[in-house]
């Protein structure tokens, strides 16, 4: 197993108390696997992604462990984590358009970054050229400033930079949310290509767009209010979801060829609970059409079929 996350709990410190953004999440990502992480805003998917590479100042590691290739990641210790960043765990951020220092030539910035990890620029220069070629960027971009590149070029540049040292785990955090639909597909395919060529061993692809995830992910994990709702092979999640939340999420997607003037697109009524003081029991209970007495207790994630985990007592 490339990545093994057990019972990970992460809170945000706020003036009103701890926001329990991630509450005992357990899952695994295998070698060569692309895990699609889906959920609405506030479900904890971005918090999970950040926890695995760099927590921001307000986040606190409360409990649980993260193991990558058999070694435990010191996720709560910013200094100790530096050894693993970039080489073992890397990130393609949501803000790829502004991720490059505007006053530094891109090649120089890459050299500075490599230097931080004791890697000589010369030793990877050739590989860098090959990868730029792969994403159809001319080698001249290295001598340019970020402002001289288009948005799509910057996006591809960041993808190449983030994966340059062949990290074991790549976290792609909402990388497609700022792109138009045709570019979204291209970016997703490029990322899958990186995995196929072995640039990255495994990947967590965070998005709120289940249909896009379905195109590249092997497994999809759906989160709700800081907890795992359902995790299954991508096809199973889309075609035969078991958790009522996943079902509602899939149902709220538009289908090709359907006139929504005649049939209204289903949404999910209500909104997720506050994570400042989350209610006991199943967190989807208030919005769930199937809820009954037993939902007052937290349902454990049960393996209903091989590789298919569902946290619902009705499933």
């Amino acid at each position: 197993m490339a990545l093994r996350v057990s019972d990970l709990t992460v809170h945000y410190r706020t003036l009103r108390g701890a926001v329990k953004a991630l509450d005992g999440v357990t899952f695994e990502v295998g070698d060569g696997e692309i895990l699609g992480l889906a959920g609405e805003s506030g479900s904890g998917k971005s918090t999970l992604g950040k926890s695995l590479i760099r927590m921001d100042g307000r986040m606190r590691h409360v409990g649980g462990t993260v193991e990558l290739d058999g070694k435990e990641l010191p996720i709560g210790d910013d200094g100790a984590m530096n050894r693993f960043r970039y080489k073992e765990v890397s990130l393609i951020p949501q803000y790829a358009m502004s991720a490059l220092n505007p006053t530094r030539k891109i090649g120089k910035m890459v050299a500075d970054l490599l230097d931080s990890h004791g890697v000589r620029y010369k030793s990877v220069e050739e590989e860098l050229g090959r990868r730029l070629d792969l994403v159809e960027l001319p080698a001249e971009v290295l001598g340019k400033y970020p402002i001289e590149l288009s948005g799509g070029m910057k996006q591809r540049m960041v993808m190449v930079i983030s994966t340059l040292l062949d990290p074991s785990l790549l976290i792609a955090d909402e990388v497609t949310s700022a792109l138009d639909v045709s570019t979204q597909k291209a970016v997703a395919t490029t990322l899958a290509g990186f995995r196929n060529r072995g640039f990255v061993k495994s990947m967590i692809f965070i998005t709120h767009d289940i249909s896009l995830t379905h195109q590249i992910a092997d497994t999809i994990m759906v989160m709700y209010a800081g907890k795992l709702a359902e995790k299954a092979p991508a096809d199973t999640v889309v075609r035969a979801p078991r958790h009522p939340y996943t079902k509602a999420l899939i149902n709220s997607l538009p289908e090709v060829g359907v006139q929504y003037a005649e049939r209204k697109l289903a949404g999910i009524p209500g909104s997720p609970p506050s994570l400042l003081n989350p209610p006991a029991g199943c967190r989807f209970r208030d919005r769930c059409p199937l809820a009954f007495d037993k939902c007052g207790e937290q349902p454990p994630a049960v393996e209903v079929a091989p590789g298919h985990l569902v946290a619902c007592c009705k499933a």
Partner: protein
Amino acid sequence: MRQYFGRKLLIYALTFFAAVTINWMIPRFMPGDPIQGLVARAQVADPASVDAMNAHYRNLFGLDVPVWEQYMNFWGALLRGDLGLSIWAFPTPVSDLIVRAIPYTLALLIPAILLSWWAGNRFGAFAARRKWLDNTILPVGYILTATPYMWLALLLAWSLAIVAGIFPVSHAYSFSLTPSWSPEFLGSLLAHWVLPFASLFLVMFGGWAIGMRNLIIYELEADYSNYLLALGARGKLVRDYAFRNAVLPQITGLALQLGTIVAGALVTEIVFSYPGIGYLILQAINSQDFFLLQGVFLFIVLGVLIANFIIDAVYTLVDPRTRVRLQGAGA
């Protein structure tokens, strides 16, 4: 690039023309008549003599022709490098007065501005990542910057010069000495320079430090900083990047300050009776000296324009975004 600077030069030329015209007009709109003051100084009682003197002086200063002709004559003289005679220090030429005052102003302001800029930026960047500094020294900076400058200068003069007697209170050198390159005279010059310099440095330092602190905090939270930190870049690299980007607006601020250098520090020079350009402005206004005022203002306009032009050029070197805009984006 050439087109960019050509256009800039044209704008600067137009600005120069307009500013100099306004400078010519301002003293002439002031109430009162400078010639009367000059004649009164001679203490002549005989009305005929007074009339004769009036006529003589009006002719001498070129005030006996219509206003539009005075304006033409003014430009003509200016292009020949002639700034006219001072009324206040009659009959010293204005250019002599300015040349005499400029070394004092420059020796006071250039070190004060440059050193406070450098030290303030360094300190602000440093304070931004030290909580205790942020909480202790920075409020002092706020107080320094918010203090009316005049009051701070007076306080310094009072405490360090009058009460403690460490430094002399006023003037640029001791009147018991004649200007020369002797160590004694240079020492006196330095001792007189410390207080006005320190008062300027303190106030400007606070301003730069606060500005830099805020800018650097903003840059350290920018996306490129977060990206580098997530990829485990050394803290020093991220801070260096942030500093370089944060310093850009500060360069503009420096340009504006440098431009006003030639105006002298009016209040400083008055408080410490320091014989720089600011002191000249005060004298010129007091004695309605059109020509001295015009001459000093001309220097200020030139100073601001030249400083701005230099900064325009520096900006194209330090900020690639300006350069790209000049040449048109690549792809």
